[in-house]
C-alpha cells in the first residue's frame, strides 16, 4: 500500500511538473468542470410530490417493511411536524418546500435478484462514474453498494463477505433479513427526534447501507456505497448503520454525485456508527454532489447528520471527509467517546467555490476516561464561497485524562470569499488537556513566485499548494479515494486564479 502510494504521488508530481498549461488545455479543463452532471435516461417509479402520513406509509409499503418499522417512521414523522427548521448556521438557505419533493423514486421493474439483472443503463452509469459494479469490481477489490435515487440497485461481494459473517447489504434488505440487529441499533446513536433533518430522514428514509461486522472479524476489503441522485424533483434520504462488534474493524467509503439541474435538491442523510469494545470504524467520504453553477443556481442541499458512538473501551472511530460538491454543505460528523480509552478522529477538507457554502466541522464528546480526539480541518474558499468550521470539544466531568488537539486552517483564494471558524471548547475535568489552533491566510505571493520561477503555470502552482495544504487529510483516505480527491480539488478550483 505504502509503495503504491509513493508511486501514485510521484506520478501526480510528474503531472504537476509538466510545462505550464496553454490556453487550450485550460479551456478543455474548464469544460469538464462537473463530470458527473449527466442524467441517466431510465424509467422510474416515483411517488408524487408531497409529504403526509400517507407518504410515509406508502414508502414503507413499497419496501414491504414489517409493522414495527412503519410505526417507527410514523413516530419520527409526527415528531418532525412539531419541529421548526434550525437557523443558527452561517448559511443562506433558500426556502425548502417539503411538499414539492418526491420522497421516493426507483428505477422501474422488479427488484434485481443479482447484479446480472441490473439494466445496462445503470451499470453504464456507474461505469461512467468510475464505480466498479461488475467484472472490474474484482480487480478493484472493493465491495460496493450502489444506491440510485431511493433504492440500492446492487451490492457486490456479498457472498464472500457473508462467509466471514459480515453483513453488507442495503438497509431495506437488512430490515427483512436481520430485523433483530436493526431493531437493536437503529436510532440509538441519532434518535428519531435528534434534529429537524434527522427526524425527516427517520420518517422517509428510502435506502442506504447496513454493515455488521461480527466479533473479532477484520473486514478483508474496503466497503463502499456510491450514492447517485438521478431523477428531478426528488430528495435523497438514505440511512446508513454500521456496527462493529468487539474487536472488529472495518473501513467504509462513500461517494456521491448528481446531475446538473437548476433546482436545489435536498439530500438529508443519517449515518450511525456503533463501535463496541476494541472495535475500529473508519468512515471516509468524498462528496461531489452537483455544486450549482457559477451564479449559484441549482446544486444539492447536503444536510446530513453523521454520528458515531465509541461504546466500548479502546474503540476507535475515524471520520475523513473531502467535501467539494453541494450548493450547501451542512454537517458535523461527530464522535461520542463513551468507552474508556476510546478515540475519535476527524479529518476534513472542505472546498467552496463560486457561490457554494459550507458549515461543517465535528463534535467530540468525551465521556469515558483517557479518551482522545484529534481534529484536522482544512477549509478552502474561492470565488464567492463561504466556508465555516464549527466544532465542539466537550470534556465531561468523568473524562479524566482526556486529550484533544484541534487544528483548523483556512486558505483564501480571491477577494470575495469568506472563511470562518467557530470552535466551542467546554471543559469540566481538570485532568484534561484541550488545545485548539487556527490560522487563516491566502496563497502567498512568495509561494506563487517560487513556483512560477520554476516554470510551473499559475493554475498548476495553485493546485500544488492546495494539495500540500490538504496533504494531512488526504493521507487518511484509502488510496483510490485520495487520488480521486486530489483530482476533484483540481477540477473544482479551475478558474479560481486570475
Amino acid at each position, binding site marked *: 500500500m505504502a509503495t503504491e502510494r509513493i508511486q501514485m504521488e510521484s506520478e501526480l508530481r510528474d503531472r504537476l511538473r509538466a510545462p505550464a498549461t496553454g490556453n487550450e488545455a485550460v479551456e478543455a479543463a474548464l469544460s469538464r468542470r462537473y463530470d458527473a452532471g449527466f442524467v441517466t435516461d431510465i424509467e422510474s417509479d416515483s411517488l408524487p410530490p408531497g409529504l403526509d402520513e400517507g407518504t410515509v406509509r406508502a414508502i414503507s409499503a413499497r419496501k414491504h417493511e414489517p409493522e414495527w418499522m412503519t410505526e417507527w417512521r410514523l413516530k419520527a414523522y409526527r415528531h418532525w411536524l412539531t419541529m421548526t427548521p434550525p437557523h*443558527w448556521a452561517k448559511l443562506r438557505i433558500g426556502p425548502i418546500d417539503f411538499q414539492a419533493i418526491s420522497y421516493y423514486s426507483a428505477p422501474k421493474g422488479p427488484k434485481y435478484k443479482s447484479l446480472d439483472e441490473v439494466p445496462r443503463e445503470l451499470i453504464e452509469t456507474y461505469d461512467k462514474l468510475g464505480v466498479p459494479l461488475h467484472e472490474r469490481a474484482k480487480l478493484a477489490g472493493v465491495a460496493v453498494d450502489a444506491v440510485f435515487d431511493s433504492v440500492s440497485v446492487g451490492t457486490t461481494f456479498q457472498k464472500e463477505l457473508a462467509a466471514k459473517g459480515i453483513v453488507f447489504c442495503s438497509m431495506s434488505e437488512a430490515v427483512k433479513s436481520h430485523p433483530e440487529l436493526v431493531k437493536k441499533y437503529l436510532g440509538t446513536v441519532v434518535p428519531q427526534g435528534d434534529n429537524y433533518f434527522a427526524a425527516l430522514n427517520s420518517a422517509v428514509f428510502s435506502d442506504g447501507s447496513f454493515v455488521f461486522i461480527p466479533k473479532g472479524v477484520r473486514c478483508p476489503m474496503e466497503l463502499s456505497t456510491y450514492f447517485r441522485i438521478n431523477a428531478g424533483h426528488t430528495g435523497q434520504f438514505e440511512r446508513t448503520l454500521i456496527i462493529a462488534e468487539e474487536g472488529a474493524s472495518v473501513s467504509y467509503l462513500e461517494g456521491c454525485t448528481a446531475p446538473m439541474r437548476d433546482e436545489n435538491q435536498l439530500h438529508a442523510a443519517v449515518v450511525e456508527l456503533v463501535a463496541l469494545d476494541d472495535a475500529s470504524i473508519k468512515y471516509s467520504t468524498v462528496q461531489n454532489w452537483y455544486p450549482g453553477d457559477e451564479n449559484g443556481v441549482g446544486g444539492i442541499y447536503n444536510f446530513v447528520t453523521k454520528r458515531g458512538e465509541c461504546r466500548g473501551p479502546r474503540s476507535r472511530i475515524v471520520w475523513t471527509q473531502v467535501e467539494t460538491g453541494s450548493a450547501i454543505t451542512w454537517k458535523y460528523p461527530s464522535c461520542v467517546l463513551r468507552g474508556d480509552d476510546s478515540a475519535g478522529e476527524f479529518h476534513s477538507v472542505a472546498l467552496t467555490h463560486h457561490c457554494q457554502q459550507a458549515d461543517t466541522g465535528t463534535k467530540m464528546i468525551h465521556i469515558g476516561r483517557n479518551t482522545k480526539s484529534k481534529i484536522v480541518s482544512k477549509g478552502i474558499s474561492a470565488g464567492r464561497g463561504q466556508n465555516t468550521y464549527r466544532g465542539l470539544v466537550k470534556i465531561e466531568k468523568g473524562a479524566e485524562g482526556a486529550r484533544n488537539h484541534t487544528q483548523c486552517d483556512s486558505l483564501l483564494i480571491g477577494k470575495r470569499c469568506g472563511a470562518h471558524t467557530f470552535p466551542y471548547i*467546554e471543559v469540566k*475535568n*481538570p*485532568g484534561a488537556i484541550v488545545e*485548539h489552533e487556527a490560522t*487563516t491566510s*491566502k496563497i502567498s505571493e512568495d509561494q506563487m513566485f517560487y513556483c512560477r520561477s520554476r516554470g510551473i503555470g499559475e493554475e498548476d502552482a495553485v493546485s500544488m499548494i492546495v494539495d500540500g495544504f490538504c496533504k494531512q487529510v488526504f493521507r487518511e483516505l484509502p488510496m483510490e479515494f485520495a487520488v480521486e480527491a486530489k483530482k476533484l480539488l483540481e477540477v473544482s478550483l479551475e478558474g479560481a486564479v486570475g
Partner: protein
Amino acid sequence: MGAFLDSMLAGRDGLGGVRAEAAAALLRDGLPGPREEAWKYTSLRALEQRRYAPAPGEATDVPALAAFALPGVDGARLVFVNGVFQPALSDLQAAPGVEILPYREHPGQLDKDLEGHHGTGSADAFLRLNTALVEDGASIRVVAGADAGAPIHLVILGAPAAADLAWQLRLQVELGAGARLSLVEHHLGNDEHAHLGNLVANYVLGAGARLELLQVQDAGERATLIRRGSFHVGEDAQLAATTLEAGAQMTRHDFRVHLAGRGARLESRGVFVLHGRQHADTHMDVRHEARDTSSDVLWRGVADQRSRGVFHGAITIAEGADGADAALSNKNLLLSPQAEIDTQPALEIYADEVKAAHGATVGQLDEQALFYLRTRGIPLDAARRILVSAFCSAVFADLQPAVLRERLDELLATRLPQAGE
C-alpha cells in the same frame, strides 16, 4: 415581567426620549435567555428573580482614600460609591486640554452623550437598562494633541447599604487627534453587599491618538457586575488595554473594538482568576474594518474550586480590510474537578490579504515543571502557586510602572489557591 425588571422599572413612567424607548424595548424583550448565543454560558435566571433597591442609596461605610490608592496612578481621580459620584473623595485637577465632567454635576452633558450613542448596539438588554436609568458617570475629553499625563484613576466602589442596590454608570471618553490618555478603571468592594453594577463605557479615539487602559476588577465577592466597553479606534490610533478580573460573584464583560481607521491597532492583555462559586464571562469582539489594522489579544484564565470561566474571543475582518493582521491566544488552567472553563475563539474573515490566527488551550500545570521545583526542595503547594502565579502575571509583563505591576501581582497572589487547600 420578572422580579428584576419589575424592581428596576416599576414606577418609572416619567422617562422621556431615548430613555423611554430603551425602557420600552427592555420590557418588550426582557433579559436574554439561554438560547441566545451570546449568553449561552451565562444564565440570568437567578438574576431575573432578584429585586434590587433603586440607586442611589445611602452608603453606610465608605472606606478611606488609602484603601483604593494604586501606586503610580496619581493623576485626576473620580470616585463613585454605589454608583454615586463623590466630590469629596475625587480630585478633578487634570492636565491642560483635559476636561472631566461628572454627569451628576452636568446632567445636560449626559443627555447629549446618551443621544450621541443612541442606537449603537442597542439590542443589548443591559445597555437598554443603562440608557433608561443612568444618572451618573462622567465624560472625559482630551483635546487634539494634548497629553493627559499621569493616569486618571476611576474608582468604582461598592459599599454596604441598607438594601442591595442596582446602579448604572455611563462613561464617555473622547481623544482628539494625536491625544494621549492613560486611564485606570478600578472596581472594588467588600463581601458585605450584593449590589448589581452596570457600567457602559464608550471610547472614541481620533487619528493617531493613544489610550492606555488598565482595568482592575476586584469587586466584592457577592456583587454582580455587568460592563460593556465600546471602542472606536481611528486612523493610526492605538488602544492598549490590560484587564484583571478577580472579584465579583458574577461578572459579564463585553469588550467591543472597532478598528475603524487605517492602521488602527489594538493590544489587549487580560487574565481572570476565579475561585469559590465565581462566574466570569468575557466577550471580546474585535472588528477589523479598515486596511492595515492589527490586533493582538492575549488572555489567560484560572478556574479553581466551583468557579466557571467563560471566554469568547471573536475576530471579524470585514470585506476590504486587506492587510489586517489578527492574533488571539487564550490559555486556561482548570484547577478543580468542580470548576469549568468554556472558551470560544472565533474567526470571521471576508478579505483575503490577511493574516489571522487564534489558539486556545485548557489544561493543568505542567507535571515536569512541578517536579523540577520539588526537586529543588519547594513544597508541592508552594510550587503550584509559583507556577500559577507565573502563568497569570505574563499578561502584566509590559505594564508600567513597575510598582503598579508588583501591586497587581500581589493582588493576584491573594486570589490563587492558598497553601493547604
